[in-house]
């Protein structure tokens, strides 16, 4: 019988071991991504957000925290309407950032 003896996975992110290859490549191609201040304007204005939870802020952060599945889930809902780029207070070209990310595989290589 089941006594409930199991190990729940830890939700903590270990920055020592987290894999951020894709993020590193991204900031090479789109250095402005570094200047994100997580203000959330992009998410707030996002056309896809209401039904998909898309958020460029979370994408940029998620990549640094190794949450690639979540990142891909969000990216695959973006419609490239470009509103996020219009509102970004730091002038990040979020639209191209998304396109660039879609071209990178998990290892951060541009797919050919």
């Amino acid at each position, binding site marked *: 019988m089941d006594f409930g003896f199991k190990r729940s996975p830890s939700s903590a992110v270990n920055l020592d071991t987290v894999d951020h290859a894709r993020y590193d490549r991204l900031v090479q191609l789109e250095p402005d991504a570094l200047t994100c201040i997580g203000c959330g304007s992009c998410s707030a204005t996002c*056309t896809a957000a209401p039904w998909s939870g898309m958020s460029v802020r979370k994408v940029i952060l998620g990549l640094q925290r190794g949450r690639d599945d979540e990142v891909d889930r969000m990216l695959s809902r973006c*419609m490239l309407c470009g509103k996020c780029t219009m509102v970004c207070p730091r002038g990040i070209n979020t639209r191209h950032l998304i396109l660039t990310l879609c071209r990178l595989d998990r290892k951060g290589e541009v*797919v050919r």
Partner: protein
Amino acid sequence: MRERFADAFNPFVIPFLIGMLFVLGYCLVAMVRVVAQLPKADRKRFLLSLITPKYIWMNIRDIFLNCLIHVKLWKRNKVLGYMHSSIAFGWFMLIVLGHLEVMLFLPERIHFFYYPIFFNFFVAETETTLEGALLMFLMDFFLLMVLSGIVLAIIKRFASRIVGMRRTTRLSLLDRVGLYALWSIFPLRLLAESFTAHISGGSFLTIPMNWIFRQFLGNDLNALPTWWAYSVALCVFMCVLPFTRYMHIPAEMLLIPMRNAGIRIRHPRKGFALLEVYSCPSCGVCIDACPMSVRKVNCQYTTVYLNRQLRRGNERRIEEISDKCLLCGKCTAVCQVGVQGPELRVAQRQRRKYALTPSYAGIDVQPMAASVAGAGGVLYFAGCMTRLTPSIRRATTSLLDKAGVRWTLMDEEEGLCCGRPLIMAGRPEQARELIDKNLEIIRASGCDTLLLSCPICYRVFKEEYPLEGVRVVHHSVFFQELIAAGRLRPARNEKEKFVWHDPCELGRGCGIYEQPRAALAAAGELVEAGRNRAESICCGGSLGSLTLGFEQRRAMTQNALDNLTVSDPSSIVTGCPLCLSTFGRYADRPVRDIAEILDSHC
């Protein structure tokens, strides 16, 4: 009238023959390749058009007007127009007349390629006969015409501003070779014919020169070398032609019938795209036209260089150039041969491979349902951008109410993107998914008019959505009609001075120029921008560019604003939310959407 040489041959014609055969052979092969690369349907369509009288006439006319007379260029710039047509048409006439002479006097020699070209060497004619004198005169006349063109060309090369071009293209090495060959051909012909004028006869140009030469050197010795030089110059020109911008001369002759047949770019590198690339004369008109060129560093991203890189197959540069462009379409508008810069670039963007492909199939459109069934029902799609410029939406809906239109919003709470941004980014399949979703909503609404206040949306709904029975209309047009029908009565205010900015997607994109102006004229005084209509300057905010940074766009916006304010309007009016917010950022005077203006006057 007598033939000078019994064997009707001289070795100096050999270079010319080589060049001639080479260039003809090359062009033939190239032409076959291009046609072969077309998709089956397109090829059929094209070949059919070649035997359809309507198209035949159209093609002949266009080729004559564009390739020889360069009417487009005349309209844009008289000097350049004269320069090009004098060379092209003059040369053409020299060839025609040459053949005419042969046909008239020595029909049996017509099968010699070189005879018409070097007629004056092989045949001694007297100008005493009428036709002789006439032909001689015409020959010299057209030669003079060409020479005048050449002189202009040389001036243009060294001081482009004199002929009214701010920037001109950087020439590649072969281009230079071709250029100098071209320049030398006609002076050499003049020399050659002058040296032989006392034997073969001549006219107002060659006779006097012949006389001058005879004062200080015996001609007969000089005659042959000059003919050699003339033939060699021709040879050089024809041999390098396929590898230089001069390839546009033959290419355009194929491009025109294909375009007339309605062929479009289907493959980024093959068929029609390839043909367009080769049709580019790298004249550089697009450099000045391109809104990006306000910053000199951006000149390298203009269409002329895209075509050059496409010829060279330099993938890195091709990607750079393709992604930088705003897709405003200005280059196409001014291009003499009508190379479609934006379409070419989008095609390149479509080549990309992606690790991640978005999908919208899962979206449930139920929450977005809107209903406005029945005749006269207007479904208003405000669009994503309009959410950042709510004034447009408010003004539009208020105008609809004032005109008593029965309407409903398609994206009241939330909505989907129209798909145009995805298409611009080179992801048409994904756009297709969105289009299907939006179609569901539109069809379900039962509307008979789809109203759009955003040209980006308007264009894609018009071009890509199968909306039989539903009228797709931009609000500027819709309101103009309401005014015409007297359902809207704007109070005209003389004191207000409006300038209309033609949004790229609305103007060049959909050819809508006059209705907005008419509507504005009803509200106040309408003034024009320095460059307007098909040549209006992109606001710099376009979604077309993937890589232009925010700061880089500023200069373009500023330049567009300077162009809009030449006649000092009291406010700048546009019909695009993107232009509105982009201009609004830097404008020194109010920027309004046409709906706002009309609403405040009704």
